[in-house]
């Protein structure tokens, strides 16, 4: 909350501005250079590269190719898979993640529950574990044949499937594994946010309503839901962004296979650059994705814009 809001748009004289910059520069300069060189410049350079047949070798030519990199994407099946799977991942995992996060948060927050912190800690463990390790773990659990734990449970123990499933060898079962991993790994995040939000609701609201004779369901509908709505908007936007940015879960579990059928946008961007060395093409994909993310988060951008210097 800076003072500038009280007297907005006060013109600062050039001399005064220079003096202000002189004061702030020692603190700001390193952050400016770091962000400029390693974030802002790379983003602009990425846009430029998307119009080139870019070569990473120093001194090599990088001819301009216009929109060729962009047009190429729309002719490729891999790109269609990547777009489809990125959207599917968002549509499938966001509602489940959101529901489970809220559901478990409400349960843990019930008055009679003991060991609240222990539950929260345990549910959060997948979040802090590295993507590589949990991806190994899921590949192991969903191993083909009857040695994988999931096949063992479904086939040997329960007998609900006729033969062990080759989970990662088929498009849709592989997608199922990726979605499960995504949900399993990230539910704890929504849970923790909701738990904090629920604990922030004043107890007096509930007490007052109880005196008026409200039951548990009414309390939930008329107090809990409205009180957590602002957080819900934030949570859902973050979940959408997280699901849209799906990458390591695909890259480490299936590598996009079989035959690019589980590819998502970021895994394609990465492999095009670092395995196929199509840097220009990869950048064009990145630019398109950046625009999509930007549009997707437009509402949040506006919110942040408003919030900053009120």
């Amino acid at each position, binding site marked *: 909350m*800076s003072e500038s809001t009280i007297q907005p748009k006060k013109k600062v004289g050039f001399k005064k501005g220079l003096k202000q910059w002189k004061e702030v520069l020692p603190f700001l300069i390193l952050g400016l250079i770091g962000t400029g060189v390693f974030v802002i410049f790379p983003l602009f*350079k990425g846009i430029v590269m998307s119009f080139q047949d870019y070569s990473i070798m120093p001194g090599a030519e990088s001819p301009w190719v216009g929109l060729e990199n962009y047009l190429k994407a729309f002719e490729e099946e891999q790109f269609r898979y990547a777009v489809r799977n990125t959207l599917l991942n968002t549509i499938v995992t966001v509602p489940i993640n959101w529901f489970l996060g809220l559901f478990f948060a409400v349960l843990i927050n019930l008055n009679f529950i003991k060991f609240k912190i222990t539950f929260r800690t345990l549910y959060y463990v997948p979040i802090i574990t590295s993507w590589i*390790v949990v991806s190994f773990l899921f590949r192991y659990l969903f191993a083909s044949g009857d040695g994988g734990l999931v096949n063992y449970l479904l086939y040997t123990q329960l007998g609900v499937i006729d033969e062990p499933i080759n989970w990662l060898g088929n498009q849709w079962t592989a997608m199922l594994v990726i979605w499960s991993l995504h949900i399993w790994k990230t539910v704890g995040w929504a849970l923790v946010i909701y738990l904090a939000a629920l604990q922030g609701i004043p107890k007096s609201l509930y007490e007052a309503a109880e005196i008026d004779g409200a039951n548990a369901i009414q309390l939930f509908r008329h107090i809990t839901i409205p009180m957590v709505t602002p957080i819900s908007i*934030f949570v859902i936007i973050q979940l959408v962004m997280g699901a849209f940015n799906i990458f390591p879960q695909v890259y480490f579990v299936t590598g996009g296979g079989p035959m690019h059928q589980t590819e998502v946008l970021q895994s394609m961007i990465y492999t095009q650059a670092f395995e196929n060395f199509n840097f220009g093409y990869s950048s064009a994909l*990145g630019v398109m994705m950046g625009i999509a993310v930007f549009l997707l988060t437009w509402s949040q951008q506006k919110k942040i814009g408003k919030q900053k210097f009120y």
Partner: protein
Amino acid sequence: MKNKKSNILSKLVVYSLLLLGVVVFIFPFIYMILTTFFTEAYQLPKPGEVLTVKPNLENYDRVWNEYKFYRYFLNSTLVAGVAMVGGLFLGAMTAYSFVRFEFPGKEILFRAFLFTMMIPLVLAIVPQFTVIQNLGLVNTYWGLWLIYIGGGVVGSTFFLRGFFETIPKDLEESVIIDGGGNWRIFWSIYLPLSKPALATMAIFSFQGTWDEYFVALTIIKDEALRTLPIQLMMFQGQHASNWALVFAASLIAILPVVIIYIIFQKRFVQSGGSDGAIKG
């Protein structure tokens, strides 16, 4: 309206649901730990065998000494440690600039910073690599540190700014009366009063670089310089069917983060989850 019996029943249902959740989220890890006790697992151990295996540390010993994971562990500690301290310092200074100073162009600058948070960073990896290449820092930790610290400023600035803003301006007066300047205010007021936020930030940053794979893979070429995530992927490639060894290495790699988390989790989750995030 509520009688005792239905009350106990509903408690039982809620506890069962919560425990079911714990099983789903935690059992895979237990299964993974049990798997590491197989010493000759050249094929997938049968689930029945996994649950009855005798604990031993042989695979951990092999991975640590024979496969030299101690070296990659130290490499990762060095990389993540320096990146954490540097990133924290830079983030705190930049946040301080935005909170305590007025200067022309501040708002535009801050918006530009925030805007970059919305762009997927995969787009930036190739250009970042070319910058490091031009600086002649490929295959050095300096290259990694520059990208981690430089690329992380925006996030930490955004996070810390929220905490810095809650520090009352009156506190500065005592420093000013003593003849101290902006640096003194930064050192003796802003930093000490934001300890919880700085600690949270430190943990996030440490975990982020400790687990970072994609940038490290492009910058580091020497086997001796590899960090844990890279070596872990290579190791899994070489010992694809020996999950016991792979998981022993994996557990070594996640242990520090899990320990730090469990020690600090009360503070870590609360400030990380609610304040910092909701301010976004």
